[in-house]
């Protein structure tokens, strides 16, 4: 077990597993926010593991999760809009999850970029990072909008 694998395990224990607990319990609002955090963090864990195992091909799992994870969150927002709108506005800890996602992406991707030789591999890593930031940001925003829409006109499909 090298440093990268250890870092991946640490991120799993401290980030992804608590997020998984958040998805499994509590009100829908918290579950959706936690689902967004979990896919982002797990994608980062995959990146760290790929580096730790010295298999760049494993990065493809992180790439796929970076685009499908936000799709999953947006799907919950779309199909559970009435439940999201029914509750009170997002609490402060829940609103802080999306910025935390950004921080996690930066903390993982920047060191990985430093040790990657300049070239296509580096650009691919940065693309994954940008997709993670964009996806998690948009999904977080979508949850906030859906929760705020509590008193707006209904008529979603």
């Amino acid at each position, binding site marked *: *077990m090298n440093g990268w*694998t250890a870092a*991946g*395990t640490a991120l*799993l*224990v401290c980030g*992804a*597993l608590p997020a*998984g607990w958040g*998805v*499994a319990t509590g009100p*829908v609002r918290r*579950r959706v926010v936690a*689902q967004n955090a*979990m*896919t982002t963090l*797990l994608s980062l*864990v*995959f990146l760290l*593991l790929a580096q730790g*195992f010295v*298999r760049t*091909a*494993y990065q*493809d*799992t992180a790439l*796929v*999760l970076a685009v*499908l*994870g936000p*799709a*999953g969150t947006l*799907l*919950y927002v779309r*199909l*559970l809009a009435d*439940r999201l709108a029914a509750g009170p506005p997002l609490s402060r800890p829940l609103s802080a999850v999306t910025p935390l996602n950004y921080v996690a992406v930066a903390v993982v991707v920047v060191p990985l970029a430093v040790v990657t030789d300049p070239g296509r591999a580096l650009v691919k890593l940065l693309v994954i990072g940008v997709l993670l930031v964009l996806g998690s940001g948009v999904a977080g925003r979508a949850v906030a909008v859906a929760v705020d829409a509590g008193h707006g006109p209904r008529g979603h499909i």
Partner: protein
Amino acid sequence: MSELPVLLGLLFVAVAATATVLVRDPVRQSFLLSVLGLALALLFLLLHAPDVALSQLAVGSALTPLMVLLSVRKVRRRARDERREEQA
């Protein structure tokens, strides 16, 4: 020590799978199902099986929840329509 990640992955899968079976409400179950999918993908990657991990991610992260939630929506709508007819 080097077995720790795999052990964690196995434990994660066992807990998520048990919880998915025990929860009865389909909407909650769809959330747990997505956690289980991600846990399985992690375990497969830890066991150096990225092909299977990719399959699990592709199916589990959006497709399965979409199908479950669409079915729930259909059933709910039917129940709502029936209630409306009873009131009318």
